[in-house]
């Protein structure tokens, strides 16, 4: 293992030239298993996978990646890592790109089923640097399944988040672990992570591709990013695409919601797109988009998107029961219901929520939503609980201070976001009172309303203005967008109430159906009966 650590890598060979016994697979020498033993099934696995990748047989690669890898992991590697990369390298001609891919899967397995050590975390960072380095240099000509490429970016961000949490818990660290943190202080540093994602976005020119596609000059979404005819590599393009979602995610973890949404902007999530294709990417995109909008007070937008995805999951989750992502899908599903409950309590736009989603929501959160509308201490406790359950795992990106006294500060970032969120909730305290009264009237004088609400007139005026301000968010273009279902205006001393009617989007529905039927018809045309 190189002792001086720089992530703009030197030669790749140096990383695999070391003897297999040199600390690979764990800092401790007592591993309890032999990393060099390669069972026959693994031999077959890597040989076939290598061949499929060389032959660009995306379908087979996907089958092996999703199916065989999981099955073998279940059967043989429940408590142990897979064989080391040095052990399998001879079976795949020591192909260094394949070895990088194998190692990526190797580390992902360790994170998913076992508990990675500090050293393994650092080595995984090393591997990602090499892998992305190779991709960014444009020397890759494989076609890989989108699922795999998404998992790479997703896992990259996840391991970053995990490392930030890990290194922020200093109290229980051993001397050795602290040493490691100090020595490899470049590993998973936030600049590196962000710059890799940014580099993938730029080098792949994905934003230009999406722009050209809008003008009909490029086929991207239609082929899910693959190149069926030319066979050119989809790896850089798709990694660039998924990195936009990765950047949204990292910015949410940092608390920078505005920039996160900007990173996602080239993807139009009101339409179908490549982000839909892999369910993991679809869910992650909408979850973070919705959460960012919630923190930006664009409640109506958040509700709309949560509604769409929750409906989708309701309809289609049965098809993913066997997939390894099923647990994650369910977890995110529950979190988004919690976020939806929060949004609807702050901005009751129930007409934006589809029937089935609404009934699920009521099943899970009816009692809590009633409590949240009350705006007393119990309400804040519920907001706190739901926010804590559903929020991303915020991180402190700065390097740890490795001096006494050692503290655990992994909760700091989360506590700040929670505090600011509850502060916002508190500011909206009296608004639900206004809402419930105004629902009963078409006009009412300020004096009378003040009496009912047991406040004086000037206070009532401020409350009425607050409602207007809070319910009209400013979107990214500086336009004012109304969020509320209940609106009013004041003429001198009289409040005139206007209730907006629910909007039925016929045109959208027709457009979607036209496209769907056209697709069906062209598919039918393609079937040759002989």
């Amino acid at each position, binding site marked *: 293992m190189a002792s001086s650590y720089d992530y703009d890598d030197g030669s790749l060979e140096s990383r695999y030239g070391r003897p297999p016994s040199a600390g690979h697979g764990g800092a401790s020498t007592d591993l309890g298993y032999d990393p060099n033993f390669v069972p026959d099934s693994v031999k077959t696995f890597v040989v076939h996978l290598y061949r499929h990748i060389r032959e660009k047989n995306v379908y087979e690669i996907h089958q092996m990646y999703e199916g065989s890898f999981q099955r073998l992991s279940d059967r043989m590697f429940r408590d142990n890592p897979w064989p080391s990369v040095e052990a399998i390298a001879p079976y795949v001609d020591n192909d260094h790109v394949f070895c990088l891919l194998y190692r990526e899967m190797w580390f992902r397995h360790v994170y998913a089923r076992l508990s990675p050590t500090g050293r393994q975390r650092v080595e995984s960072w090393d591997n990602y640097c090499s892998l992305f380095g190779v991709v960014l240099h444009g020397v890759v000509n494989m076609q890989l399944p989108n699922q795999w490429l998404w998992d790479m970016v997703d896992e990259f961000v996840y391991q970053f988040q995990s490392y930030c949490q890990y290194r922020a818990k200093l109290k229980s660290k051993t001397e050795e672990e602290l040493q490691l943190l100090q020595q490899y202080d470049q590993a998973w540093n936030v600049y590196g992570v962000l710059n890799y994602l940014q580099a993938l976005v730029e080098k792949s020119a994905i934003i230009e591709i999406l722009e050209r596609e809008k003008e009909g000059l490029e086929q991207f979404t239609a082929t899910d990013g693959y190149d069926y005819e030319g066979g050119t590599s989809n790896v850089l393009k798709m990694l660039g695409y998924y990195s936009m979602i990765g950047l949204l995610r990292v910015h949410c973890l940092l608390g920078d919601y505005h920039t996160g949404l900007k990173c996602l902007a080239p993807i139009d999530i009101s339409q179908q797109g490549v982000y839909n294709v892999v369910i993991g990417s679809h869910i992650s995109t909408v979850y973070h988009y919705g959460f960012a909008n919630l923190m930006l007070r664009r409640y109506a937008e958040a509700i709309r998107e949560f509604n769409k995805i929750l409906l989708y999951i309701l309809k289609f989750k049965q098809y993913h029961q066997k997939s390894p992502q099923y647990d994650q899908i369910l977890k995110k599903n529950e979190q988004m219901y919690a976020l939806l409950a929060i949004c609807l309590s702050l901005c009751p736009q129930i007409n934006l929520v589809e029937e089935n989603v609404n009934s699920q929501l009521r099943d899970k959160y009816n009692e809590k939503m009633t409590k949240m509308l009350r705006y007393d201490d119990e309400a804040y406790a519920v907001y706190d609980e739901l926010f804590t359950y559903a929020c991303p795992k915020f991180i402190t990106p*700065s390097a740890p201070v490795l001096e006494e006294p050692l503290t655990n500060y992994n909760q700091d970032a989360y506590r700040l976001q929670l505090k600011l969120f509850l502060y916002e909730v508190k500011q909206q305290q009296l608004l639900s009172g206004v809402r419930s009264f105004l629902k009963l009237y078409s006009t009412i004088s300020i004096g009378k309303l003040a009496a009912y609400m047991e406040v004086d007139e000037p206070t009532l005026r401020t409350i009425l203005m607050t409602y207007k*301000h809070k319910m009209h968010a400013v979107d990214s273009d500086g336009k004012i967008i109304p969020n509320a279902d209940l609106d009013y205006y004041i003429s001198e001393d009289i409040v005139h109430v206007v209730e907006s009617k629910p909007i039925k989007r016929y045109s959208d529905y027709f457009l979607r159906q036209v496209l769907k039927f056209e697709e069906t018809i062209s598919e039918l045309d393609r079937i040759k009966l002989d």
Partner: protein
Amino acid sequence: MGREQQQVSYTVEQLVSVNPYNPDILTDLENYVNEQVSSQTYSLDANLCLLRLYQFEPGRMSIPIVVQILIKALMAMPASDFSLCLFLIPEQVQMEEKFKTLIVLSHYLETARFRQFWDEAAKSRSILEVVPGFEQAIQAYAIHVLSLTYQKVPRPVLAEAINIEGLSLDKFIEHHVANSGWVLEKSHGRSQLIVLPRNEFNHPELQKHTAEGVPFEHVTRIFPMLS
């Protein structure tokens, strides 16, 4: 001199969009904040970028610069820029006196408590006067909120919101009658009424039902089938 300044800000904006995750641009961004203050311009993206860099390297954080950023963000209301900035500032830092004052001011503005706001602002003049244009910006925000809420606003309410009274208020109203479409009316014998310009928020009948419109791009997707 003016053109040189123009060129610097162009470069900073480019830096922020092309290479934002780079500790070397920190000083440029700090200078840009000072420039925004002196030339009464504003860039949310550049300021968020700087706050992020401070987050990555807390040792390099400059409190005066952050104070300036927050004041600029307050001036950007009704946009929620102030909270966006707070999300990026560590809790301990927010405990400083100056920040606490700014947070209180923001709270008053968010809850339309204009009288309390102007009282507090007067007490905190020393913090706020570093940024020119503050008063006008808040007055613009106050008028915005009034325009959302009122078709006809009584004079005392307006006066409290923008912190102007007497002859100055007369002049202010005159100016807006001439330039912004305000109209003066007499209410039932008491004070003046200011009729604010019609917009879709205080005149709901003007609300364009944008949801019924369809963006052109969506329709273009079915063009191939129509031909």
